[in-house]
């Protein structure tokens, strides 16, 4: 069959290219532009080369923020994934209660980040917040504005409250796709509850769980609004995660050059980690199907 060559097809792609150009490439290039220059105000810029990159890569401030960020993502993944699976396993499978549970689960996901932050900011306050007040009334010394540990606990519990539902819903969907015959066969084979989970439920949930991990990892790695509203990065720098630090640097201190270099490094790190996840996922799939 002869294919007709028709270069006019390019016109069909043009709108997308333009859109991506203006929404992604141009802003990114502005950032690249800032990252290699220095300014002393008055819109006068000087070529700075890779100086900002060197400074940022060597900066202890960035290293600390990066470590905090990794710790945050690791902790919330370690809590949300098992907890989400556990909740999904215990949700009713059919009937009215299944629907009720699903709606309840979906609720936190519908609340805007900002509002979630505000809710927890007030909830945790010692003077008027239900949680903070109750804890201090019980004699527990809790104050997220002064104690770094309390601040960390607060933002982690908040994230768990906000996002475990996503894992639950994905895991639940995975579980619902298992035909009853599997459970019946397991009963007949006298498999224990653990073995049913290990050999039937977990393999069937593998795909959705990988997606859940990827989504939660990327989202938590870029988190800004909620912890910012609750702690503002404090006390001190205790909860200054990467994006909070970046905003401080760019808008608080107006260090455009270092902040731009920071942004690009941040972007590359996320890109790299996503690529690693993606490769691992596709490799696992390929391995499974080859066996």
């Amino acid at each position: 069959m002869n294919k007709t060559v028709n270069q006019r097809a390019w016109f069909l792609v043009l709108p997308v290219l333009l859109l991506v150009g203006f929404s992604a490439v141009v802003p990114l290039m502005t950032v690249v532009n800032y990252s290699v220059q220095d300014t002393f105000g008055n819109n006068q810029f000087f070529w700075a080369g890779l100086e900002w990159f060197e400074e940022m890569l060597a900066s202890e401030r960035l290293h600390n923020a990066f470590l905090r960020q990794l710790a945050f993502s690791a902790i919330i993944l370690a809590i949300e994934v098992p907890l989400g699976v556990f909740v999904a396993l215990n949700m009713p499978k059919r009937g009215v209660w299944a629907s009720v549970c699903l709606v309840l689960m979906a609720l936190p996901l519908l609340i805007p980040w900002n509002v979630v932050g505000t809710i927890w900011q007030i909830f945790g306050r010692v003077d008027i917040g239900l949680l903070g007040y109750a804890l201090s009334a019980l004699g527990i010394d809790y104050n997220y504005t002064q104690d770094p540990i309390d601040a960390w606990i607060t933002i982690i519990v908040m994230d768990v409250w906000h996002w475990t539902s996503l894992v639950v819903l994905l895991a639940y969907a995975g579980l619902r796709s298992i035909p009853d015959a599997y459970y019946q066969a397991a009963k007949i084979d006298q498999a224990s509850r653990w073995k049913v989970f290990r050999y039937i439920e977990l393999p069937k949930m593998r795909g959705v769980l990988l997606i859940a991990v990827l989504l939660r990892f990327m989202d938590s790695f870029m988190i800004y609004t909620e912890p910012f509203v609750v702690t503002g990065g404090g006390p001190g720098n205790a909860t200054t995660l990467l994006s909070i630090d970046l905003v401080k640097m760019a808008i608080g201190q107006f260090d455009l050059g270092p902040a731009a270099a920071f942004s690009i490094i941040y972007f590359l790190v996320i890109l790299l980690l996503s690529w690693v996840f993606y490769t691992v996922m596709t490799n696992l799939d390929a391995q499974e199907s080859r066996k």
Partner: protein
Amino acid sequence: MARITLAQLAHSYLKAPSGPADYALKRMDHEWEDGGAYALLGPSGCGKTTLLNIISGLLRPSEGRIAFDGRDVTDLPTAERNIAQVFQFPVVYDTMTVFDNLAFPLRNRGAEEDYVRRRVGAVAEMIGMTDALGRKAQGLTADAKQKISLGRGMVREDVNAILFDEPLTVIDPHMKWELRTQLKALHREFGHTMIYVTHDQTEALTFADKVVVMHDGQVVQMGAPEELFARPAHTFVGFFIGSPGMNVLPARVAGAQAWIGEHVIPLAGDHAPQERAEIGVRPEFVRLAGPDEGIPVVVRRVEDIGRHQIVRAEHAGREVNMLAPEGQAVPLGEARFAFDPEAVNVYVDGWRVPARDEKETAR
């Protein structure tokens, strides 16, 4: 292996069944022999899967008892009944190897690894999967997976019964034959009690020693394939088994004769007079008749299916079919059909009435 007794068994999915229509399974009493191969045959929704689930213990009957070898198991959970079941869709543990799949029921019961290895080796040989033992179960074909399910059932030596719930539904036609033959051979060799649910009469008739035909929550006939063919106990059995099914025509019966309208049909046995009866005769025992016998019909269609021809005709608005040998010329239009008297069964209210001089056969 066990003899299975169903005593006064009935089941309703409703909490307070009020009439017979509320029962998915109407009251039944049966004794199924140890080592028998039984097929539960019936259309969808006739209660055969309900019955199977009651035997396997996945469902507790709302009335009556069930016993294995005389021991009441009605209240025992599935795991303690020591039965095996092969499902419609192959159930294998995807992440395990074939070996681990087969070993699973034994290991769950705490068997010694030595014994497990010996048993799995033996079973793999039975189902012809010795070469695949080291493979992951995931990539296998549907029929291989179904063989593994079967193997998992047979790996326990003391299994009471193996239940099959339409196991060949998702198998390719050419593999169906092979699996069915293999199943039959395994049954002959190892003598497990096997219960096989299907809506496919060919599967039921080739697999089973005894076919249990179910209709509307009831066992309408239990018998060897020949019995179901020659003496269907209910017109439903006549319809359901055979292709095409039995011809059923309203008739008046007295003595050794039946009348369809004014046409006389000779019978083999002597019957009590019945005004509102039906006669049933399989298309295999219908032949073209001369001008003075049988009933007048209008031949509508002749289907040549290779081995023989199916002649589709009508008498007084009811379908009457005949099987004609290959090569016989059957003209369309008016003709007469006569029935082989030995093959004519008499039915009243759907149930077969034996002739007065015929020995009562167990239903």
